[in-house]
């Protein structure tokens, strides 16, 4: 890279705090004209805070932002747009019910005699989109176009309005491989015009395919900026995960190798643009760890198995019998359980008591005709509060008043109460303190010893190593490797996550 290129955007010591959290801590970031600069980091690393500070959604607490040498402080998104910073989000923020042309020129359409000049708007829209290699009927409703076209329209609007800095926030998450190639061609055309592009993504392949440089954030801090040309995948993954591969491997709890027939057996199970088809066998008493970067398809795999999303290909057998799981209810009826990643929004019912939260899944399974009596649910709750050591003064306490670890245990109790055969835990240790971590891990081991089949999704690789018998590694929404026996260690897992994939095999 030629360092003499002018700095388009320069962030110095950017700081943003929220009550109790430092989301950005003195981050430096540079964008040259005509470059694609990838912004990387795991969940909560501070990527979106940085973007939002830049686009005026948040006001920074400290640091400086210079655009072409001039200090700026965008007050809102419109202000940022006027200054020249446009953003395209993963979920296209345009209007599906208006036409393509109306979306492109909303609020600035040409007028004649005070009325909208539809013909000229359409001609202008066609001219604009031809520059993006898009030849479509601009009178079509945007919602009738494919997501890729919507994405391109959003980019065209952002560039037309702003024209200096384009921020692409996970633009490829909803696109298939061919569409990604088209999008990249467009981005290259824009950089050739001198526009600087900030590219936020989870897909490392795409970073290596498109970006000139990459900046990695972790826990709100800058880890470093690398020229892509001189880096390899492993360096970047290490920066993102923040651990050296020499770290001593945690002692693994050894278990008898089970040779029972699998509880759950998937063959070629998948869903278009969601998870690539995969094979998976899970035996009783076995814990399968699922590893991969954020957005690699971990949670998607769980949602497919639990019927939250329906597979559109492949077969699933439970206890040797072929089944089709069409809803979470059907999955629960088969003896499946699922503790979701975000327990605040998808798991606990904050205002209900610990007892009610624990009894919920069992009640749902029994149906509303056979209500669970108060005494019965009380006995159930007391049993699990004791068994899992849930620290609460009282089973009737609203669950939101409990600590994260105890909420997690109550959620686990909810599913254990239904006596499942197969339990999926998505990030069971996220957001809970260190002591509770160890307890959850011990609990997972105990459940396996009791003969439960477990699938545990986690970003904490040391943890996975501690309890998993086998580890499935995902990348770009496909199951790329399964590690067994001695291969279950931090080194091999990180290497598998970072390994080169076929270029362009995204989505």
């Amino acid at each position, binding site marked *: 890279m030629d360092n003499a290129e002018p700095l388009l955007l320069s962030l110095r010591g950017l700081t943003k705090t929220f009550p109790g959290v430092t989301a950005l801590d003195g981050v430096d970031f540079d964008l040259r004209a005509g470059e694609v600069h990838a912004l990387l980091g795991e969940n909560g690393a501070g990527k979106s805070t940085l973007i939002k500070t830049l686009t005026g959604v948040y006001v920074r607490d400290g640091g400086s932002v210079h655009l072409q040498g001039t200090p700026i402080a965008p007050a809102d998104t419109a202000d940022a747009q006027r200054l020249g910073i446009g953003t395209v989000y993963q979920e296209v923020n*345009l*209007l599906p019910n208006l036409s393509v042309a109306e979306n492109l020129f909303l609020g600035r359409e040409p007028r004649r005699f005070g009325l909208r000049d*539809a013909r000229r708007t359409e001609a202008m829209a066609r001219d604009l989109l031809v520059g993006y290699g898009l030849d479509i009927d601009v009178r079509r409703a945007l919602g009738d176009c494919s997501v890729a076209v919507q994405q391109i329209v959003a980019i065209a609007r952002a560039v037309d309005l702003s024209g200096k800095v384009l921020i692409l926030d996970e633009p490829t998450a909803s696109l298939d491989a061919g569409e990604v190639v088209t999008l990249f061609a467009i981005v290259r055309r824009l950089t050739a015009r001198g526009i600087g592009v900030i590219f936020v993504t989870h897909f490392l392949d795409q970073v290596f395919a498109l970006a000139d440089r990459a900046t990695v954030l972790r826990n709100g801090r800058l880890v470093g900026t690398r020229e892509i040309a001189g880096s390899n995948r492993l360096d970047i993954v290490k920066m993102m995960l923040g651990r050296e591969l020499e770290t001593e491997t945690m002692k693994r709890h050894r278990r008898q190798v089970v040779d029972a027939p699998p509880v759950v057996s998937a063959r070629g199970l998948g869903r278009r643009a969601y998870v690539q088809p995969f094979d998976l066998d899970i035996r009783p008493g076995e814990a399968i760890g699922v590893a991969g970067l954020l957005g690699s398809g971990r*949670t998607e795999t769980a949602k497919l198995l639990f019927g939250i999303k329906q597979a559109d290909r492949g077969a699933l057998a439970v206890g040797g019998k072929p089944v089709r799981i069409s809803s979470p209810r059907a999955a629960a009826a088969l003896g499946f359980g699922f503790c979701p990643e975000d327990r605040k929004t998808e798991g606990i019912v904050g205002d209900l008591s610990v007892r009610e939260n624990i009894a919920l899944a069992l009640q749902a399974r029994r149906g509303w005709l056979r209500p669970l009596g108060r005494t019965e649910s009380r006995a159930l709750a007391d049993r699990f509060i004791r068994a899992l050591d849930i620290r609460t003064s009282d089973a009737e306490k609203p669950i939101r008043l409990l600590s994260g670890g105890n909420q997690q245990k109550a959620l686990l109790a909810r599913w254990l109460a239904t006596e499942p055969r197969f339990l999926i835990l998505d990030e069971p240790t996220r957001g809970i303190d260190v002591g509770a971590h160890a307890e959850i891990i011990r609990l997972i081991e105990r459940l396996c010893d009791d003969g439960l089949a477990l699938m545990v999704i986690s970003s904490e690789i040391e943890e996975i190593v501690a309890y998993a018998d086998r580890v499935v590694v995902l990348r770009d929404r496909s199951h790329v490797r399964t590690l067994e026996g001695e291969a279950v260690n931090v080194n091999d897992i990180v290497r598998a996550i970072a390994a080169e994939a076929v270029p362009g095999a995204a989505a």
Partner: protein
Amino acid sequence: MTSRNLPFFATLVVFVVAWALCAAQFPAMLSTRVAANLITDNAYLGVAAVGMTFVILSGGIDLSVGSVIAFTGVFLAVTVRAGLDPIAAILLVLVITTAFGAVMGAMIHYLETPAFIVTLAGMFFARGVCFLMTTDSIPIDHPTWDALLSVSWKIPTGGRLTLIAGIMIAATLVGIVLAHLTRFGTYVYALGGNRTSAELMGVPIARTTIAIYALSGALSGLAGLVFALYTSAGYSLAATGVELDTIAAVVIGGTLLTGGVGTVAGTFVGVMIQGLIQTYIIFDGTLSSWWTKIAVGGLLFVFILLQRVLVHLAGRSRDRLVPAT
């Protein structure tokens, strides 16, 4: 033809088929006189429905329409009886109803209160004010008023287009221009499509919301004037539930209750379908007039079902492309 204007075409087909069936039984229904009367008899509904179309397109609702129509009639009757010139009274009442709508719009926007609640309050408020002015039915009797009533245009083959029919047609045409040819119209659709996106794209939300409810207020006032001309009286209990008839007309006319999709022309056809059912019942002579409500209710169910099916289909086709993360 896309799936988006399918409801409008469905409405149009229903109207044409219904008229053909009626005409097969009563050939007289093909005359321009019946057509002109159809418009005259439903003029107040049609005018109010134009305003309601904008409100529903933006994703809102206006329950005050019927009360504002009654208020307008009572206000005209009371002030004309008190000696105010009818033209001045008309202008004054239109200013009042427009301002009333604007205030409701401002409350909806600035207090972040659902339109349903604000306009429900507006409905009770306007109806209450009617009773405050008078509880009697007051006839409107003034030379200017009679002059307004006598205005009409002859149409070939014997029909007569009255002033109020003219007002309805004009209101519909203005509504069409406003919805499809002005920047304001695009903003209304944008608001109904996705409020957050519209705001990010620079749509002036506050101004547009206030303008939408002011427009609905103004057109309710105009509908009240039409209703007063039609009945030549002002009565506090008049036009109860008309807001629901207008909502029905808008929905039957192919506008999505969730906002963002629909046309003013569709609403016109929706009003005409309701009128046609009434006309058929009058021609038949043996049916109870309540059959109108039953038929409208049935049609509403059918159209809401149609909308759900279309929305579901559109959602499915998009779902294939958007994975959740």
